[in-house]
């Protein structure tokens, strides 16, 4: 009866032979605040600094603040129940829309709006940055040579998506 509906459910698809932009739906996002020492026995080794992401047992672990982590797991994930009492847990699965952009021009398209260095040597796979795109906060995660996942606030997702597809218009079919 209740079904999940993405913020981009009615967004116009983007098609191109060199670039894909779309939503990667179906993940869970848990924000955990607390000391890495206390959390890592459950999650696996946590990244040492903000901006690094590691993969552990099918989950992506990101350090998003001095003592704050994001655990991105499968849509249904029971890790919440296993985390220690003293960790402060905030489920955020619905708060972010994940937009994927992949293809040779992906870095160029992102650089049109994100004030970061998208050179291959500077923004490497496995790193992420929390920054601004189109006046909204986004987390940009590099997950491959030319593949990025963008976590946009759900209520801004349509705007961010439209902005991106507009920026990618020159590569559209």
């Amino acid at each position: 009866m209740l079904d999940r509906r993405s913020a981009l459910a009615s967004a116009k698809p983007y098609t191109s032979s060199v670039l894909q932009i779309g939503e990667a739906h179906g993940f869970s996002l848990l924000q955990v605040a607390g000391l890495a020492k206390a959390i890592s026995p459950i999650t696996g080794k946590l990244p040492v600094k903000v901006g690094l992401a590691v993969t552990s047992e099918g989950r992506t672990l990101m350090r998003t603040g001095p003592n704050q982590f994001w655990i991105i797991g499968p849509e249904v994930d029971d890790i919440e129940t296993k985390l220690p009492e003293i960790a402060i847990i905030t489920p955020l699965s619905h708060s972010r829309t994940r937009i994927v952009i992949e293809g040779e021009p992906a870095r160029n398209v992102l650089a049109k709006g994100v004030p970061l260095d998208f050179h291959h040597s500077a923004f490497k796979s496995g790193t992420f940055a929390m920054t601004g795109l189109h006046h909204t906060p986004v987390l940009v995660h590099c997950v491959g040579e030319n593949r990025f996942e963008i976590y946009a606030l759900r209520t801004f997702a349509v705007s961010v998506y439209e902005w991106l597809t507009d920026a990618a218009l020159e590569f559209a079919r």
Partner: protein
Amino acid sequence: MRIPCPHCGQRDVGEFRYGGDASKARPAHGTGDMKAWHDYYFLFDNPKGPHDEYWQHVLGCRQWFKLTRNTATNEIGEQP
């Protein structure tokens, strides 16, 4: 201007929000000391030169931090 977020590194000023003079000590609550609060809230040294101040990486990690910036040149020094 580029601002060094202690967590995310150098970023453009556009990602931040300025939070005012960080050298001022916030008075205690509950003392009823109106004068202390007035001076804290309404008066500024506003120096032409080094200034300790708060910034929040509002489009990034959302952390507040202190830095010293020279208001005559906008040069940013160490974190105090």
